[in-house]
């Protein structure tokens, strides 16, 4: 027997250490150097999931039911893997709505319903108190084992007066701790940093203690895992101990247990507290989503070896105590003490967080609404109510722990650790439909949630809680076997004839089916109020990036009234923060909607959403809710995605259209620029002959005594320039017709040979006058093509004219050739001039392009071209399906213009007839 004094000193010393850590954490938080701003601390605080039940009970359950204990950890693992979606959304909402607990969360989701919040708080109280009792039981039991070993632990629960019961004192010390670190701030939505730091530390302690026992068992008691397994295999009665068949309820039991743990992990008040309320940074969720499952793996690593060792070595006593008795049996002193501290840390961690969560619910969801409703809060208290609120919460803490103690002292003996835990789990699961469905389905409404949850918790009570009481001898257990009043189908463990199921899966199936069925069914057939609709939209669309809490108040109140309200409930300091950036304004002024919303949020953080709404209602006159704003939110939420999608599509189409328009506009501007340029060119070309005509006309008019030779010469200039002007106008008109496609061509079958000869005749006389030698080389007998003879002749003459103009000054030569080339005829005109540089060869077809001859001297008596002949020629040829281009002159060395026209198809009716004669 160990010295009780040593054990107690160590235990209370450990609790004192927690005080120090929590005080340090709070101090750091006040200095702005938070201890808990790390994803690792967040993950460790979530490990408050592993209570004394994990610490002692896992081994006990493994010893009795094989590996089924693992399901209790697979559920949370699954939940954490999904946490980047589910928990992140809950955290986002909790931040926006200043959520203080799961009761507040559900109340807020369903229109800030005070009734629903109270229901959740009541269920939590009833369902979770046994769980707190379980922790006390674990502490008491482990303490007794430690002190009394090897004698069986003497619990002396009911027999001894409570002051002799150490667990009573543990409860009181914890109450002091929680009051100190859990109720420092009135605003329950603010983080309890010191408390979280202490919880994270506790998670490390319990893990270290459990791993120590594991290592000791496997490597000290046995020679490693191989040895242990060999010894187990050699013991026939243990061979099947860890097979999967040992799970109660078989495969269904597996599923049931998994679902139970999955849901409870999200809905247990303490889990909600650490996962959501105490979360300091959404990004921590990502790290925790794998770090926390890793923690679960580590703490479960040695459960099976320890359980097997316990069975092998037969330490005797309660299987829940094997963790402790195994090292005790080996006669060690230090290790059992460490294990005891580990168990203590697991138990106290759970009790601390659970009690804070429950006390917040009690004060905000149960006491405050009642006080508000029955007017027990004097409206004109000078001192304000902030202190009173904290006092309510502190009293609640003490009462909750005492209730836990009472439950433990009166009922605790009858149940194993795991059993109590699972009953609580199943109770917490009743929050899951309202919370999770409400998170994703906007239609879920308050009536459905309330009815579903009520039905669920009643079925839970009937199928788990009451049978538990009966089994512990408080009730006549007869109804278990026969049903109440002999009604067979109401038997708690075989409701509606469903027999042979594991009791938890059985209870979960009925309670959750009724819960979800009513939630969904009632919601489908009843309507939501406006506030409900708003809150539903704010919750389901919480991840919407543009959704901020809108100011929905349109009622009127003065700043003074609002300030007085906050002063009473939050105290002067918090009120000053709300009004911080608005101090300049007058108290008689009406309060803006944003300020009312801000005030409500501040109240919600302290009192919960439902009470905050009631209080704001009490000072705001007129239609409080802005229905238009609500409708606006509803529109912008559900339809926003679809609308966005359509808008995006539309804007893509618009962008495309505007790109097309831009391009079209670009083309038009280019065309406009070309047109301007053309007009400028035309005007320039017209002005030149006009200038000569006018000048000489004026000279002839103003100089009556002009010598006759001069007069004749000047008149000749006037005549020639007039002809040039007419020609130019004709060309410009041709070009305009060509470009607009209105050039009247009358194509018919004709002989290009004939036409070429005709053209040569037309220019021959002029060329000879200028001393140009004109050769003709026609290599075909006839060349039938389709064309307009007048226009084609115009083209050929233009080519011959150009060639003459650009032929060499000395012995100018021009040569016309006509050859057949495949299914075409090619008529080429070359000269012996300087030729055209390759880069110039396309430009000569541009309008008004003047070919500059390097050796050109315009005064040589050759008329300047207008720069329109070649563009017009090319246009005509193209109209007739042919081509016109420039190449090197094959024989004369100058430029060569080639016209190519397709051969006309054989004419059936009339044999090739001369086009012109």
């Amino acid at each position, binding site marked *: 027997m160990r010295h009780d004094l040593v054990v107690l000193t160590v235990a209370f010393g450990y609790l004192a250490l927690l005080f120090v850590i929590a005080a340090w954490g709070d101090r750091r938080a006040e200095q702005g150097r938070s201890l808990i701003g790390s994803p690792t601390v967040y993950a460790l605080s979530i490990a408050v999931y592993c209570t004394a039940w994990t610490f002692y009970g896992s081994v006990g359950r493994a010893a009795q039911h094989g590996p089924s204990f693992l399901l209790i950890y697979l559920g949370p693992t699954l939940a954490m893997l999904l946490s980047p979606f589910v928990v992140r959304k809950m955290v986002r909402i909790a931040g926006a709505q200043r959520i203080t607990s799961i009761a507040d969360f559900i109340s807020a989701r369903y229109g800030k319903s005070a009734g629903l919040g109270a229901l959740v708080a009541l269920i939590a109280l009833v369902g979770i108190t046994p769980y707190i009792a379980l922790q006390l039981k674990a502490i008491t039991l482990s303490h007794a084992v430690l002190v009394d070993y090897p004698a069986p632990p003497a619990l002396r629960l009911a027999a001894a007066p409570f002051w002799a019961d150490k667990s009573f004192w543990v409860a009181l010390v914890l109450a002091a701790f929680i009051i100190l670190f859990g109720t420092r701030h009135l605003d329950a939505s603010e983080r309890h940093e010191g408390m979280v730091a202490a919880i994270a530390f506790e998670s490390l302690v319990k893990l270290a203690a459990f791993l120590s026992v594991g290592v000791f068992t496997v490597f000290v008691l046995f020679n490693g895992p191989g040895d242990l397994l060999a010894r187990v295999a050699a013991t026939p009665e243990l061979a099947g101990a860890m097979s999967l068949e040992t799970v109660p309820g078989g495969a269904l039991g597996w599923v049931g247990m998994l679902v139970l743990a999955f849901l409870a992990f999200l809905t247990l008040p303490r889990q909600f507290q650490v996962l959501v309320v105490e979360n300091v940074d959404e990004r921590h969720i990502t790290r925790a989503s794998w770090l926390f499952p890793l923690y679960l793996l580590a703490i479960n690593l040695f459960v099976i070896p320890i359980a097997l060792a316990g069975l092998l070595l037969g330490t005797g006593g309660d299987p829940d105590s094997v963790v402790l008795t195994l090292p005790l049996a080996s006669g060690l002193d230090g290790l059992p003490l460490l294990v005891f501290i580990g168990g203590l840390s697991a138990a106290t961690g759970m009790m601390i967080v659970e009690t804070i969560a429950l006390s917040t619910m009690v004060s905000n969801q149960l006491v405050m609404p009642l006080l508000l409703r029955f007017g027990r809060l004097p409206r004109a208290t000078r001192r304000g109510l902030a202190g009173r609120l904290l006092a309510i919460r502190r009293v609640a803490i003490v009462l909750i722990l005492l209730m836990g103690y009472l439950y433990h002292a009166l009922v605790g003996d009858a149940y194993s650790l795991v059993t109590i835990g699972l009953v609580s789990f199943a109770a917490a699961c009743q929050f899951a439909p309202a919370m999770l469905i409400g998170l994703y389905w906007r239609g879920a409404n308050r009536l459905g949630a309330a009815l579903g949850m009520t039905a669920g918790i009643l079925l839970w009570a009937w199928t788990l809680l009451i049978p538990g009481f009966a089994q512990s001898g408080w009730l006549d257990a007869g109804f278990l076997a026969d049903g109440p009043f002999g009604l067979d189908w109401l038997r708690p463990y075989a409701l509606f004839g469903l027999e042979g199921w594991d009791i938890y899966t059985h209870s979960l199936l009925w309670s959750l089916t009724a819960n979800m069925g009513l939630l969904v069914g009632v919601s489908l057939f009843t309507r939501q109020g406006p506030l409900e609709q708003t809150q539903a939209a704010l919750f389901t669309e919480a991840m919407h990036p543009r959704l901020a809490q809108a100011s929905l108040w349109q009622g009127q109140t003065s700043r003074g009234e609002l300030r007085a309200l906050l002063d009473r409930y939050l105290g002067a300091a918090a009120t000053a923060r709300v009004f911080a950036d608005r101090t300049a304004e007058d108290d008689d002024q009406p309060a803006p909607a944003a300020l009312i919303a801000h005030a409500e949020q501040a109240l919600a953080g302290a009192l919960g959403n439902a009470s905050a709404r009631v209080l704001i209602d009490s000072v705001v006159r007129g239609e409080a809710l802005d229905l238009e704003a609500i409708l606006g939110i509803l529109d912008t939420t559900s339809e926003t995605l679809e609308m966005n999608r359509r808008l995006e599509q539309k804007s893509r189409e618009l962008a495309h259209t505007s790109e097309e328009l831009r391009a079209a506009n670009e083309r038009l501007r280019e065309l406009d620029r070309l047109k301007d340029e053309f007009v400028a060119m035309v005007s*320039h070309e017209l*002005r*030149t002959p006009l200038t*000569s005509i006018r*000048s000489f006309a004026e000279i002839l008019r103003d100089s009556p005594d002009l010598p006759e030779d001069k007069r004749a010469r000047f008149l000749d*200039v006037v005549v020639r320039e007039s002809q040039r002007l007419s020609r130019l106008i004709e060309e410009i008109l041709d070009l305009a017709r060509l470009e607009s496609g209105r050039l009247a061509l009358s194509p018919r079958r004709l002989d290009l040979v004939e036409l070429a000869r005709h053209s040569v005749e037309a220019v021959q006389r002029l060329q000879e006058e200028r001393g140009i030698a004109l050769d003709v080389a026609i290599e075909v007998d006839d060349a039938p093509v389709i064309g307009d003879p007048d226009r084609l002749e115009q083209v050929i003459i233009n080519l011959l004219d150009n060639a003459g103009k650009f032929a060499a000054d000395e012995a100018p030569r021009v040569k016309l050739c006509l050859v057949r080339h495949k299914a075409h005829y090619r008529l080429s005109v070359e000269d012996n001039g300087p030729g055209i540089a390759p880069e110039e060869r396309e430009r000569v077809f541009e309008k008004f392009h003047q070919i500059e001859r390097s050796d050109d001297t315009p005064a040589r008596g050759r008329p300047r071209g207008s720069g329109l002949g070649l563009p017009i020629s090319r246009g005509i040829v193209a109209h007739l399906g042919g081509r016109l281009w420039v190449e090197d002159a094959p024989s004369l060395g100058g430029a060569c213009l080639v016209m190519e026209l397709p051969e006309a198809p054989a004419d059936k009716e009339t044999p090739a007839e001369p086009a012109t004669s």
Partner: protein
Amino acid sequence: MAKVLVVDDEPNIVLSLEFLMQQAGFDVATAEDGEAALASVADDAPDLVLLDISLPGISGFDVLERLRADPAHARLPIIMLTAHGREVEREKGMALGADDYITKPFSTQALVDKVKSLLTEAP
């Protein structure tokens, strides 16, 4: 006797201007492109230049710019003659230092008056 340099690539316009200037009592030199104009200014030392803009090779604007860049010809009276009637071109010509800008076709009397007035202004 004052000397006028006529620069244009249209032979008939040169012919008419030459006759007009001679009739008004001036000596006349002619050039058909920019290079010839610059050479003539250097060789013949004209007292006034009638300068077409659209010339083969370097344009009338270039000739004007080069003449104005040379201090010796900074104050040489220069009248631009052009078939480009656009205002921007007129402004460009004036900015480059032309003394006047006359659009073709022009009144022969007005041209002769302008030449005379510029020449009597000159010291």
